[in-house]
């Protein structure tokens, strides 16, 4: 349909029009395109911003020095080995280690995908939450899909997911934790939703991380409180108590509220 010699559309609008034409079943309401560009030049530009020392110190903060290379790595536009080599070029082994360790998570998930393809959509282990799979809703509630949960920071994360197709790791954890534990929705529903929006959407990294949050692939469920969100969020995220009440409380309170029969340590 498109020959190598054909002119590549130089403006994004024609490129988007081509994609639309190729996707006749795509809903007419789906009009959002991310500002994150595809292609090697864009990947290289991101790689240039890599700062392993800063990464080690700030990576858990939503405004920390993370690379946003995941969409390129996921689609093989840039290899994780190339990124690792650059990190080791820029910093000592000790300084680069945290970054390389994070890169290795991807390798780890891919290995599991290869070895156990069934783990992608099935619970690897039982839930440790005190609930069984039957206690979780099958479908994603509409208010979540629309980003209208009424929990301010969660709605902001959803908006970011829907408009940019990218979320910081910590925001993914907060959102997945909210869906699995505050709303008691099956991790599969959340994972499928992430995969349709994340530019880096990857069956292994995504679904196995969801299972880690849900506790079907870890010793305990991942949960957090509003203080934690406040600690790791920059000024752009609304963490006011009155607009985020369901997330507020001590870990002990939340544990009692979310997992009254939980048997994890």
């Amino acid at each position, binding site marked *: *349909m*498109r*020959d*190598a010699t054909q002119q*590549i559309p130089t403006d994004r609008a024609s*490129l*988007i029009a081509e*994609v*639309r034409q*190729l*996707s006749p*079943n*795509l809903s007419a309401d*789906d*009009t*959002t*395109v*991310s500002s*994150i*560009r*595809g*292609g*090697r030049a864009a990947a290289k530009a991101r790689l240039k911003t890599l700062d392993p020392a800063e990464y080690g110190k700030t990576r858990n903060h939503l405004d920390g020095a993370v690379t946003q290379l995941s969409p*390129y790595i996921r*689609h*093989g*536009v*840039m*290899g*994780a*080995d*190339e990124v*690792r*080599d650059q990190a*080791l070029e820029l910093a000592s*082994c000790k300084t*680069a280690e945290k970054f*390389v*360790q994070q*890169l*290795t*998570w*991807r*390798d*780890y998930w891919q*290995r599991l*995908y*290869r*070895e156990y*393809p069934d783990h992608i959509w099935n619970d690897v282990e039982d839930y440790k939450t005190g609930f069984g799979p039957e206690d979780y809703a099958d479908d994603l509630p509409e208010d979540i899909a629309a980003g209208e949960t009424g929990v301010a920071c969660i709605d902001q994360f959803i908006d970011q997911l829907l408009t940019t*197709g990218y979320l910081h790791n910590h925001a993914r954890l907060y959102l997945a934790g909210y869906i699995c534990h505050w709303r008691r929705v099956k991790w599969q529903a959340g994972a*499928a939703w992430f*995969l*349709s*929006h*994340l*530019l880096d*959407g990857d*069956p*292994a990294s995504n679904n196995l991380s969801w299972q880690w949050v849900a506790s079907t692939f870890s010793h305990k469920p991942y949960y957090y409180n509003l203080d934690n969100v406040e600690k790791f969020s920059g000024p752009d995220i609304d963490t006011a108590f009155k607009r985020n009440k369901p997330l507020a409380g001590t870990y002990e309170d939340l544990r009692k509220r979310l997992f009254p029969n939980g048997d994890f340590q």
Partner: protein
Amino acid sequence: MSVIWIHEDAITLDHPAVTMAGEGAEIIFIWDTERHDEKAYSLKRRVFIYECALDLGVKIMAGHPYNVLRELVGEQTIYTAWSPDPDYREIIADLRDTHEVKVIEAPGLVSVPDDVDTKRFFRFWNRAKKSAMTPSHQVLESETA
């Protein structure tokens, strides 16, 4: 002459599948709308993938990869990058009934023994760390030494 099938898990020409196919191989990216619909990919995901594919400057064909390749490829060998995706593995298995398909794996980030424990990440990391922290050029040097 060979055909190189580029799929969505390796949208690159910097891959051993491309090198091994040799000069003059025909390179095609296959755009699979049915796959995108099935996975409910949003417009932004599709645009990102298309933009990456266009950037390669290769021929793009639309359709199910099995049908496209069956129709396009005669006696030639098909080269493609290895992927854990069960759909791709199935397509490759089906193509092999009628064609020679070479599935090539890129070196990747770490190399660890096959019996490595993958039950939890940190056990894996302890075994993988040395290899993960070794730059590619050093691995190449030790392999050719």
